[in-house]
Structures are given as C-alpha cells and as structure tokens.
C-alpha cells in the first residue's frame, strides 16, 4: 500500500494531463454519440494545453508580470503560446457544434453509425 500512496503523491500535474489526454482519446474511439465525441476531442485539446502550461515549471517561480524579479519568473513562452491555443480550441469546438446542429436537423440522428447508414440512402 505504501508504494501506491507514494505513486499517487509523486504524480505531477503533467502526468495527470497526459492521462487526461488519453482518456479523451478513449472517448473519441468508443463513443458513438456525436456530442460526446466532440466533448472528448475538447478534453484532448485542454489536456494538451495543460501539459504545455506546466512545461519547465520550477518550484517557487512566480507569474511573469512586472514587479517580479527576473530570476523568480516562470517561463513566459508556454503561457503566451497557450492563450493562442485556447482561442483556437474554443473556435474549433464551436464550429464542430454548429455543424453538429446542421447534421442533426438534416438527418435526425446524433449517432455516427446510424448517420453513415442514412447517408447511403
């Protein structure tokens, strides 16, 4: 039991982010409901962003805004980049949902498999 507790306390945020990423991938592989797959893909995106945010993090570093000593600053590059990535993720998910509405109104189903069958007719 001690080793399990050690394992759990030894986990970092980036480990959890990787786990979250593959959870999202599992969802995208197994869920037949379109909304659930869109959610899974969104989870993958957020997990990758979280992982990137924690890159090169050092204990005790502060946010890189004015007033912080330079040696205390956290690496500003991931934070600057991830703002962009978050915006992209939001817009792509929004677009997926808009297309989902169209598809559901036209074919009357939210299931990938049934959808393919209805496309054939």
């Amino acid at each position, binding site marked *: 039991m001690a080793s399990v507790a050690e394992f759990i306390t030894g986990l970092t945020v980036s480990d959890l982010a*990787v786990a979250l*990423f593959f959870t*999202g*991938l599992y969802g*995208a*592989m*197994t*869920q*037949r409901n*379109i909304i659930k*797959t*869109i959610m899974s*893909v969104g989870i*993958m*995106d957020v*997990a*990758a*962003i979280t*992982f*990137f945010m924690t*890159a*090169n993090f050092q204990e005790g570093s502060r946010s890189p805004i004015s007033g912080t000593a330079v040696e205390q600053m956290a690496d500003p*590059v*991931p934070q600057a*980049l991830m703002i*962009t*990535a978050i915006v*992209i993720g939001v*817009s*792509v998910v929004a*677009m*997926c949902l808009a*297309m*989902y509405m*169209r*598809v559901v109104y*036209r*074919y009357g189903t939210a299931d*990938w*498999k049934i*959808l*393919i069958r209805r*496309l*054939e007719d």
Partner: protein
Amino acid sequence: MTIPLIPLHVFVFLPVIIGAVTYFLPTRWYHAVMLLGNLAVSVLAVNIFIHVRWTADIIQFVAFWPETVAIKLAADSLSAPMVMLTACFFSCTYLFSTRAAYMDKTFIFIFLMLEGALFGVFLSGDLFNIYVIMELGMIAVAILIMYKQDKQSVYDAMLYIMMNFIAMAFMMLGIAYIYRITGVLDLAVLEQRISELSNPRSVIIPYAMIMTAVSLKAALLPLFGWLPRAHGAPSAPAIVSAVLSGIQVKVGVYLLIRLNTVFSPAIDASMFFLILGFLTSVAGFLLAIAQKDIKLILAYHTVSQVGLIVMGLHMGTEVAFWGGMYHIINHALFKGLLFLSAGIIIEEYGTRSYSEIRGVLRRMPIIGIATLAGVLGITGAPFFNGSISKYFITAGVQGNLAEIGLYLINFGTILSFVKYSTILFGTPTLKKSPKMDPYVSGISLLFGAAILVGGIFGSQAVSLMYGSQYSAQGALGFQKILTFFLTLAIGVGMYYMVVQKIGGVLAGVRIFKFSFNQVTVFITLFFVSLLGFAYFTV
C-alpha cells in the same frame, strides 16, 4: 528591373489583406482589383523564388527579437518553389472560375485566407507557428467544403475538421514534449539541440506524436479516410477540390520532409515511410478503380500519388528525392487540371457517374484535350511531365524489390485512368456544343501546355527549380517508351477483361466507409506503431 523583396510576414498576410479590402469594393471593380492583387502575389512569390534560388536564403525574425525567442520566417530551397507553385496555382484557379455561380465575396475571402495559411506553413520556421497556421488552414478548408451546404457536405466538413482536430491535439502534445526537453521551438535550433541530446531515445514520444499529425495531413495509409470525403465532396466547388488536391495535401508531405530533417540526428524512420508510401499507393489505386463517381476516382488517385511521392522522398538516394519533389509540382499541375475540368464536365452533363458521361472530346474539344493531357501526364506517358519524375524516382532503385513495387503502382495508375478516360470517347448523349468561357479554356490549355513542357524539358525544369542537375535522357529511351505502351495495352486489356466483370466485388469495396470512431482507432494504431518502430530502431 528588380523588384524589391517584401518582408515575409507581409507576404503571408497579403492575400488576406487583399481579400478584406476588396470585400468593400463595388462589384463593378471587384474582379479587376482581385485579379490585379492575385497577379501581384504571384509576381512577389516568383521574386522570392528567384532571390532564394540565385542569391541566398531569406531568414527573417518577426518584430526584431533575437533568434530562439522570435518567430522565424524562412524561405529556402525547399519552401520557395512551393510558395511560387501555391501563388501561381491560386491565381490560375481564381481566373478559371471568375464566372462561376458560387464565387461570391465571402467565398473568395476565405479562399484567399487559405492561400495565406499555406504561405504561412511553407515559410514558417517555428514549430508552434506551424501548428497555429495549420489550424487556420483547417478551418478555412472546412468552410470551403461546406460552402454550398447541400447534400452531405456539412457531414463531410464535420468529419474532416474533427479528424484533423484530433491529429492537431496530438501535435500540440508533441510540441509540448519537445519544448520541455529542448526548450526551443525554432526548427533550426531544435535540430541542433536534438543532436546534442545525451539520450536520443527521449525524443521518440514527441516524434511519434508530431509525425502522426503530419501523416494524417499527408493522408498516409490508415489515415486517408478524410481525403476522398474532402476532395471528392459531391457538392464542393471544383476549384476547392483542385486546390485541396493540388496544394493543400502537399503541406503534409512538405512537413514530413521538414520535420524528419529536424529529428534526423536522433531518429531515422525512412524505412517506415517507404513501406507506408508503397502501401498507401497500392490502396489508393485499388480504391480508385472501385469508384463510379469521377470526382472520387480522382480523389482516391491523389492518395495513390501522395504515396508515390512519399516513396520517392524516402528512397534514400538523391535522384529519387528530387524526383519526388518534382512529382509534387507535376501532381499539382495534372491533378489540378483534372479536377477543374471534371468540375466543368459535371456541370455540363449534370451527372458524376463515369458510365453516363460519354464523348467529352467531341462535345467539349478543349476540355477534352486538356483532360487527355492530364491523363497522359499522370500515367507517365513519354514526353509528358509525369514520365520524368517517375523516371527519377525509379532511377533511385535498380533491380530490387522497390522497382517491382513502382512498376505495380504505375500499372495501377494506368488501369484506373483507363477507366477514367472512357468518358472522353464514344458518342455524346447531347449533340449541342456548349459555348465555352474563354478563361476556362485558356487556363485548361495553359495547364495542359505546362504538363507537356515540363515533360519535354524535364531535366532543365528540375535544375531550374531545385538547382540539381540530373539527366533525363533515359526517360525517352526506346525501352521506356516500349514499357509504357506495353503497360498501357495490358491495362486496357485488363480493364475490359477483368475490371468490368467484377462489378460485385467493386461495389463491395465502394461501400467500405469508416465512421469517426474507427478513424480515431486508426490514428491511435498509427501512433502506437510509429512509436514502436522508433523504439526498436533508435
């Protein structure tokens, strides 16, 4: 007369700015200004190419930050020809369809945004910048596919965007890994840092992740499910199909070269991509033969040709590499032409089934001749450009297994295009010859002429584009010509003896479509197998 070089980031934004400004112009001037803008972009792209080819590479850092901090834009001998090709291709396709019904201002604006995104990917020297611009291109492509919003185009676009989004999530996680290990995103510095790593194994996970995303963009074997849907989407406008097949899929191939170079100090996966290229090519032409829809025949055929290009690039010899690079340009020319003319043919006949279209050569002589030139180019007929690049790719290997594989691919290409070219002959169902738009016929003939010139002056074209001298004398040798006509005869024979008799089997192959979940499983399998390959070879 010399034209001054403009900063590269201005060049990337130029198409978007043109699209945005002309949006507010009255319709009377609109097309003239747009044409002028497209011409200006093409001239500037040619100018960049000339500078890179004969003077020096262009490297610029955005906003004057130092290297490794700034976003780098670079035009080198690999990207400058691609940029020139993109600019000229977009101008030609724009001119081709100025009179088309779907060409409203919003459509053209998004079309030009895609052009800017493609320039961005080719010129960018920064991994995260590439990621952002690829996402932009992905959204633009999805909107263009579903622009007319009829039939199943919204479904096609949704499948496209979701598959690509998963791949891009893989890519971002890979970029995060590589940033954590090396601390830089600039491609040139990244390559140097990777070569200094004490343990090259530490980069195999990011390598597999980034390469999975890039392979999906390049439509390699299990990941090409999106391509026929996007390129052959029944209701997508012809110029969108042409641009997607001619240029956009090459982004994946280009990044495959670029990023494999970056990772080359640690990982050499050329064997993996060689085999995968072969399998992709075979699967592509088999599926192409099974299709009935002429646009889908062309779309699956793009898969096959991309496989051939990837094979050439990873053959391991220089001749084959430049052959593959030349085939990128050739494929853009003939597949662009074929998709554009297919759009006109479909519009004219009102059907997309190959068995209902007959006598294109008699009914629309100019389109027919242009299509014939495209078909001859793609099958590698002597004196046409396909023969040169295929000759170079084959010259890389003599007398081993890969040579037989290349013959097989060429045979499959010929077989599927025997099927495609049945639409050219026979008696047309309607006698009336339609009035042709002069732009349509002009651009079709221009593409056709480029295919012929690229074949006759093949070796000169390669040295002009890439600066490497190879003799293409052998491509016009008696043996090569004989081989081509022999293969053609066997192809025609086999088409009428075998392919037409097995309609049931083909119908079985045709309904073979994958749902989103299965595609995601393929992405995961691809990632795992690439990871395994890297693990056991490094």
